[in-house]
């Protein structure tokens, strides 16, 4: 695994911030069928693939807290953080060559993102918050798989290249 340097930490923070804003100010307003493309989760999963399970879990936790407190979120805090941390931890165990969107990593990001939608729906039903409309869940899971896989095609090279670059002291520090 690549070493975690300060430029890399800053890169992760900047990516999370950008993803949160783009997701609510652009993606959620497009009115796409089914789920809203979860750009934030894809960023978390790509970081986890590049940097391993520990960094992936922390990144997922930070991203989950961020999306739960950023407007227009008004629901509970902590659920998303726990699920994203788990997702980052799980996918961080996969072997990965940074910067190369191979079929396996694209599909696994799609699958984990789809699973996250399902887990969120199950947790929402158990806790009674939010009220989950189960007739919509299959469509949400299926569309999130497609959106996340498509986003992964772009995000994997972008974050992979920047992450490797940010570790190179000569170029960034």
């Amino acid at each position: 695994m690549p070493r975690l340097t300060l430029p890399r930490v800053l890169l992760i923070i900047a990516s999370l911030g950008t993803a949160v804003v783009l997701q609510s100010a652009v993606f959620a307003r497009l009115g796409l069928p089914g789920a809203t493309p979860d750009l934030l989760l894809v960023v978390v999963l790509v970081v986890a693939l590049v940097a391993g399970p520990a960094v992936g879990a922390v990144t997922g936790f930070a991203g989950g807290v961020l999306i739960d407190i950023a407007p227009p979120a008004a629901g509970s805090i902590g659920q998303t953080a726990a699920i994203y941390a788990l997702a980052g931890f799980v996918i961080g165990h996969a072997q990965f060559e940074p910067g190369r969107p191979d079929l396996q990593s694209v599909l696994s990001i799609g699958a984990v993102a789809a699973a996250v939608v399902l887990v969120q729906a199950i947790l929402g039903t158990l806790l009674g918050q939010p009220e989950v409309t189960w007739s919509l869940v299959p469509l949400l899971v299926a569309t999130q798989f497609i959106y996340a896989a498509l986003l992964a095609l772009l995000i994997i090279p972008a974050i992979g290249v920047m992450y490797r670059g940010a570790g190179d002291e000569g170029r960034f520090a």
Partner: protein
Amino acid sequence: MLGVLLLVSITLVLLDVRGSSAIGGLRGLAATVIGPVETAVGAAAAPFVSVAQSVTSFGNSQERSEVAAQELAQATGSDQTQTDNARAASQLDAMLKTAGTRGFQVLPARVVAYGSAQTFSGTVTIDAGSNDGLTTDMSVMNGNGLVGKIVAVGPTTATVQLVTDDDSVVGARLVKTGDAGALQGTGQPGESILRLLDPTSPVKEGDQLVTFGSPDGKPYVAGLPLGTVTGMRGEPGQADRVAVVAPAARMGALDVVGVVVTSPRGQARTPVSPAAPNASPPASAGR
């Protein structure tokens, strides 16, 4: 590592449930920092978003004519930003007309961010906040009717809970019969549930709903269009009989909205001295 993070998450959930002021402060900080960025990005993306919305929505005839007008504008050479401005201007006109007829004082604002569909909640961010005099529990409307109410304010942004949010309950009145009930959101954009106080009262498809109104117009002002009954569920005469309602404002494509700052219901009333019934012919229109 993961265990610690999960424990912290559960702690956050518990603190939030107990209404901790630290969590409130965290949300306030996020609104102060992220709100303005969302406003800037949302405004920059508005022309592209409106194109996407016109493609992804299968709207009513009014919307189709709006799309046709946009396409016409494109064909005659004006750019997308101009057509977006024209559409926003027509939405503003419609909103001011709806507010003006009812004597509301409104603050116009634009929707800059939406919550994700998979969270099953319906909240949006608007680009006005406490600096503009907004507080929680103010009604938000557009040209078609009630949109929702403000549930949180930051300095330059506010969070609006839509009528379709799963936590939203709005007092409603059937226009035709005057029957009162409660309109409950389901988290689905086009489908809310109406429970009438008297489940035996007649409701049928196509019946119109307006807001019942709260004291001082907070959180909801009276008399705004709320939606149209599109179907019924449950047995007639049974307590579980509910009506399915399509909200008047289309929640998927919100842009220009108005926050009702003062309404006539919030002002002091003047007593009236009606003439004796046989002194003059009845002139009232009745309900």
